């Protein structure tokens, strides 16, 4: 059971998220293999047929992530994800995992800012079992006080492991807390430690009651299956679960940032680290929007391969950094961010690295990008689209993700076309518009000696803006 560290993933995601199934020229064929039906209770069922191997993946995506939480109970979306493995009225604690294992299956779940998802990968003949178990826990979860008491400790250990003892993760957490003033992206998906300490089984029951309903979920099945058979199975296992009235979602915005913010995080480490995060738009209307596509290409021009601008200039030529990166994700429920990051070389300061990164962006804004750079980024997108077809799991992931953030898998071919149509001028324009100080939060990791007198910074501690 894991937290999808969206922030970290954003830095790595680069072009990968466009690597869905249909590339332009494959679009027609591949698209035809996706089928969709909505059950009477509102559960949307999407099937991607892929007959290369006798396996199937089932994923259930709930449109409830940490951004739907409230202050004081941060982390509850992820805690509930853990509790989903802790038994129902008819399937005792531990049985879910045992039965999936006995069927030769692999299973897990992940929580992000935007959604919570559960999956099983199995031989195609075992899909009914996976559906039986997954549909059961959609509405029959036990959520006992005793199991909650044990599992919350596991989650606290997870937080210690992933964040409190990981200086870079700590830096990311505090960066998000500083960059967002109003939007709930300011809270970490795993929750603040102080909230974890006070969460109760009642909080978990309340969360489950609010969001776990067929009309708040998307069921994605991909693999060696027939869509018609999957729809029949879905109707049989999920069809009788009653729909529920969902709470109104608060439409959070993020007020304009009126000047640069800077934070420093002290933690035991050797190397300093710099992250620069700029507020940026995300995709809302795949047909009309153009800036998110241009920002994707910008990230590719800066950091799409080892000889792209940042690595070539700052790591290889100037040797100002031992590593650098750029990242942007155009698809999310909440607001977006364009990130630059890096670790200075020994003997170079964070300030020098920041100046180096700024110089790269300034040069791009002034001189634009070359046609070669543009073509290179687009070629990588095209190829990655084909590579994506080697993984049934990620094909399903992409569908679930887009559906859960309010876009549609049907927009994928269009999104790819739009990406291919991005011009050099558009890349220059988004760099000019969004990479500016009024939009910027800078976070610096200030490394501390292991045995020093410093106080270890724990999760939940306040930060300076």
């Amino acid at each position, binding site marked *: 059971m*894991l937290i999808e560290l969206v922030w970290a993933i954003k830095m790595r995601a680069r072009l990968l998220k466009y690597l869905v199934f249909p590339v332009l020229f494959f679009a027609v064929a591949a698209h035809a293999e996706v089928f969709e039906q909505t059950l009477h209770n509102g559960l949307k069922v999407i099937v991607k047929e892929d007959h*290369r*191997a*006798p*396996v199937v993946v089932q994923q259930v995506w709930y449109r409830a992530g940490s951004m739907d939480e409230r202050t004081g109970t941060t982390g509850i979306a992820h805690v509930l994800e853990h509790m989903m493995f802790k038994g129902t009225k008819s399937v005792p604690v*531990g049985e879910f*995992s*045992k039965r999936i*294992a*006995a*069927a*030769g*299956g*692999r*299973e*897990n779940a*992940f929580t992000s800012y935007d959604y919570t998802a559960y999956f099983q*990968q*199995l*031989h195609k003949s075992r899909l009914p079992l996976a559906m039986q178990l997954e549909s059961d826990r959609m509405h029959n979860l036990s959520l006992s006080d005793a199991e909650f008491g*044990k*599992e919350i*400790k*596991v*989650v606290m*250990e*997870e937080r*210690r*492991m992933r964040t*409190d*003892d990981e200086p870079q993760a700590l830096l990311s957490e505090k960066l998000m807390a500083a960059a967002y003033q109003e939007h709930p992206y300011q809270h970490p998906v795993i929750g603040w430690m102080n909230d974890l300490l006070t969460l109760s089984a009642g909080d978990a029951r309340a969360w489950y009651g609010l969001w776990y309903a067929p009309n708040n979920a998307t069921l994605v099945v991909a693999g060696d299956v027939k869509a018609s058979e999957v729809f029949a199975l879905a109707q049989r296992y999920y069809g009788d679960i009653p729909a529920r009235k969902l709470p109104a979602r608060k439409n959070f915005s993020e007020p304009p940032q009126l000047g640069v913010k800077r934070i420093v995080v002290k933690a035991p*480490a*050797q*190397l300093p680290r710099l992250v620069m995060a700029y507020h940026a738009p995300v995709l809302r209307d795949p047909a009309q929007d153009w800036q998110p596509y241009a920002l994707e290409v910008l990230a590719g021009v800066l950091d799409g*391969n*080892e*000889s792209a601008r940042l690595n*070539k200039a700052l*790591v290889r030529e100037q*040797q100002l950094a*031992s590593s650098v990166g750029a990242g942007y994700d155009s698809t999310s429920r909440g607001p977006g961010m364009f990130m630059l990051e890096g670790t200075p*070389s*020994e003997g170079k300061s964070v300030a020098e690295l920041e100046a180096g990164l700024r110089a790269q962006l300034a040069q791009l804004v002034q001189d634009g990008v070359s046609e070669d750079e543009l073509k*290179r980024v687009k*070629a*990588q*997108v*095209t*190829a990655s689209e*084909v590579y994506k*077809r*080697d*993984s*049934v799991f*990620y094909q399903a992931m992409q569908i679930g993700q887009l559906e859960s953030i309010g876009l549609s898998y049907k927009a994928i071919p269009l999104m790819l076309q739009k990406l291919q149509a991005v011009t050099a001028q558009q890349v220059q324009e988004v760099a000019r518009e969004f990479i500016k100080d009024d939009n910027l939060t800078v976070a610096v990791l200030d*490394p501390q000696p*292991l*045995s020093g007198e410093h106080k*270890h910074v*724990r999760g939940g501690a306040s930060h300076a803006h």
Partner: protein
Amino acid sequence: MHTKIAAAVLVFSGALFFSGTAFATPKIQHWQAPSGARVYFVEDHDLPILDVAADFAAGSSFDTAEKAGLAGLTHGLLDLGAEGLSEDEIARNLADIGAQMGGRFDADRSGMSLRTLSSAVERDQALNILARVLQRPLFPENVLAREKTRLIAGLKEAETKPESIAGKAFGKAVFGTHPYGLSSEVASVGKIQRADIEAFYRVHYFAQAAVISIMGDVTRAEAEAIAQQLTGQLPQSGDAGSIPLVTMQINASEQRIAHPATQSHILIGVPGMARNDPDYFPLYVGNYILGGGGFVSRLMLEVREKRGMAYNIYSYFVPTRQPGVFQIGLQTKKEQADEALQLVRATLREFIAKGPTAKELQAAKQNIIGGFPLRIDSNKKILEYLSVIGFYGLPLTYLDDFTGKVDKVSVAQIHDAFRRRINPDAMATVIVGAPKVGNPQPPSGGAELTPPDGKEPGDKTEHGQ
């Protein structure tokens, strides 16, 4: 990719489960190229993708303590400059066609892999680059200097991370001065000169030592030409030397190393088994029951599910040329580290003393056999198997035999194999971030034990844990 799948009739109930299971496996073609390289090929035209890997016996176990890091640097520099191609040209030319070059490096193996579109233009350009990288690397002096600096910065950073500190001390405790226990040090990397790298390359990268794995959309004739193209310019023969024998019996040891982290990182282990080990299957299946089987292993149940004491708890064998490590690991909050350690030891002791139950063994077989199709459901996974089969000289029928070998394992065999291999009274234990008990020791030099992908290739899930 697997066209004969439909022929496999699966019976998933009761006693028939094992005897009735037959999964179609990819047909592996094998030959020796004129260069002397051994070639493993699966022809599959479902996707317009070609995957290629080249592996050499040139892993970190060929390092000496004095210049530890030499093998890794040699590997790392392969694609940073080759005859007629600067490092930037290599990266750019690959990106231009959307090809992806990757490396893999562990105690035994040094390998490069390539994924490209299979259409002629892309494929030829990608293979030309890989051919030059493998056969005509330049190891430019200025690139070496830069990469050494970056590596040293990384090593210094690792010295502050509890998991790295633990891994290093643990490797030394398990393997003593054997090269499997070696780790790169700031000082040893500092001594490496270009002449060392050239000499290492000359000794270890020759055609007869090469294993070429080819998966995907090419014909047999094309595959034959590719294998020769990638190895024909290498010296045909050479003497890479052999890895010394591992001392299997070790003395009990326990190191407690101070660290400000909130969690203790605990490692317990001994030398375990080799890839060609006669006990491979009993140990592999037994370990699934002990600590390998996701949410249903004994260690997971005792430490996490029953008591909530850890998020991450596992055991695994690293099956290498010589016996690699058997390792149990967990992270738990500092205050309860000793309690967790006692619990893990008691669980292990009980398992060694009594072996698994018949029921546990049945459940393990159901998972490993029933989940077999998931191990070979993508070109990427099959390529990984080709390379393991080729490198370790496993039978070409390895995949065909896999489920049968698992099915034949008995409770008595597991009990016997574990008792012979693992003496709970003579194991190495390392606790980093230890509670203040015993004699805290400063982090000492030792081994960075990076388990190469320890397990069966197919054990890797697509989604972490």
